[in-house]
């Protein structure tokens, strides 16, 4: 797996074997030359430099997105400190020692994502979007080049960890096929205080029927900054929709027995729309948990609702954006996400075509929809969410996880507040009684 470009990785930053058990940092040992994870790395690392299509794949083009990325100590270029984090106010990375600020390269520029979608042909994927190799370890081990100790990074929740011995921060920026290091990241922009205020406001408006335990326990300050995994997809397709449409020519009333009824005349047309469609930055959750949005079982739809994000402002992945935040790892591959993305792309297409169907005021019924995807590009991303979560213990012994989520780019806020069922049923009953009385009165008055 050794990187073909020897300058891109300092020897001391080589990942070691990855023990599943969280053993305490052992005494620094010389790193063994054999690397147990090397085989599973091969797919991701092989295709660096000139993207060579994989022989077994039908010409999938890989954009190498972690070229030159290094693991281990990521040092401030001015003073050499490793205490680097996002300055939310500027969107830059900042050295917390000397206050020097800089930014990672725009992902659009670095990976040329901005080009004409019409020129996209075949399948293009970011190297950080490659298939997950199930045997790849979740907990990665790195050797601290400052003191020699072993440092574990649990990729389920971060790609950074601090060395227990010398307190330096170790980062993982090279891609391993376990979904932890994406192609790009969109840094937090909404400050925590703003998110807390939004969440408070959202919940304040929903206090009356809120569950009393929730009212007592709710603290917006418990909000967490989480980078959630998504795939960002561009699609170049040709579509042909055909069906029938109706245009109303006349409406009039007729007498049926005692009552007046409306009747309609219309012209029926065969309708065909044949066109190219470019879908840009279609964004799909790439964690199987988050894709489950069954609202009787979870409130993941809340997190779904705060989309879209301004993904065009994402930058090349750099673990330093993660400090102070957590992350969730991508666990879904292209073959699982493609059907979702394509179905949504068809929804988008139908939606846009409606602007050409104004004449058919009675509606259009498509009977045939042929969509030929000519080109597609997949880039994995971490997108920033302020997430307040509340575990409700229901009387039937079940639990339900409620979220209030804030899009940490746009500030869009959505949430689920546990309901005091007894109170709501009681008041609804009162409303029902009042309604029935009103209906009786209206009937008596002959309205």
């Amino acid at each position, binding site marked *: 797996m050794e990187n073909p470009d020897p300058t891109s990785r300092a020897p001391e930053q080589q990942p070691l074997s990855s023990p599943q058990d969280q053993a305490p940092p052992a005494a620094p040992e010389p790193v063994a030359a054999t690397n147990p994870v090397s085989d599973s790395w091969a797919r991701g690392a092989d295709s660096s430099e000139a993207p060579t299509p994989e022989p077994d794949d039908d010409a999938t083009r890989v954009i190498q997105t972690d070229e030159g990325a290094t693991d281990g100590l990521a040092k401030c270029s001015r003073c050499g400190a490793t205490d680097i984090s996002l300055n939310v106010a500027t969107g830059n990375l900042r050295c917390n020692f000397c206050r020097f600020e800089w930014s990672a390269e725009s992902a659009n520029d670095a990976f040329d994502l901005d080009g004409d979608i019409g020129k996209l042909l075949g399948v293009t994927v970011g190297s950080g979007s490659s298939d997950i190799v199930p045997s790849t370890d979740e907990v990665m081990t790195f050797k601290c080049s400052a003191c020699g100790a072993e440092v574990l990074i649990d990729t389920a929740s971060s790609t950074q960890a601090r060395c227990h011995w010398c307190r330096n921060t170790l980062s993982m920026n090279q891609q391993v096929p376990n979904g932890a290091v994406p192609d790009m990241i969109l840094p937090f922009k909404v400050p925590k205080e703003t998110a807390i205020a939004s969440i408070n406001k959202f919940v304040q408006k929903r206090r009356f*029927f809120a569950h009393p335990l929730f009212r007592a326990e709710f603290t917006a300050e418990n909000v967490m900054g989480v980078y959630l995994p998504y795939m960002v997809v561009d699609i170049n397709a040709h579509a042909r929709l055909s069906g029938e449409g109706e245009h109303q020519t006349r409406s009039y009333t007729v007498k049926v027995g005692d009552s007046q009824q409306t009747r309609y*005349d219309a012209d*029926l047309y*065969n309708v065909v729309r044949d066109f190219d469609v470019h879908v840009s930055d279609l964004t799909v959750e790439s964690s199987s948990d988050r894709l489950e949005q069954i609202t009787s079982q979870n409130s993941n*739809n*809340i997190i779904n609702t705060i989309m879209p994000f301004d993904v065009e402002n994402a930058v090349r992945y750099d673990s330093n954006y993660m400090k102070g935040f957590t992350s969730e790892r991508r666990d879904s591959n292209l073959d699982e996400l493609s059907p979702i993305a394509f179905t949504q792309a068809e*929804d988008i297409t139908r939606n846009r075509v409606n602007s050409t169907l104004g004449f058919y005021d009675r509606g259009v*019924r498509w009977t045939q929809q042929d969509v030929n995807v000519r080109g597609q590009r997949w880039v994995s991303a971490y997108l920033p969410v302020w997430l307040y979560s509340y575990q409700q213990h229901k009387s039937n012994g079940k639990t339900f996880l409620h979220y209030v989520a804030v899009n940490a780019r746009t500030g869009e806020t959505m949430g689920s507040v*546990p309901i005091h069922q007894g109170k709501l049923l009681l008041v609804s009953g009162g*409303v029902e009684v009042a309604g029935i009385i009103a209906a009786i009165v209206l009937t008596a008055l002959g309205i």
Partner: protein
Amino acid sequence: MTTSAMVLAVHDQVLASGGSSGDDGGFIGFIFLLSGFAFYALMYFRYRNADKRHRHESETEATLLNMKKGDTFVRSKTGMSNSRMSGANSHEVRGARRKFF
């Protein structure tokens, strides 16, 4: 779960009735007779937002190019009682992740 199912039914009814162009004059009476259920549904969705989702179909950037249109007259239809074409599906959304059950 039964309450949720009932709430959904009412919610859909309210949406359907509210959205149609007014040829159901019994709506006022209906809403009074079901006012308790309607109130429950309204509050349930206001607090739980179980009906919300990302509107990917309209909120995703997309461009149509090289549009070729075919519109050929077939025939005239008369005396229909429905104000909308039956089976119209051009506003259909199939890729929503949010499901109720």
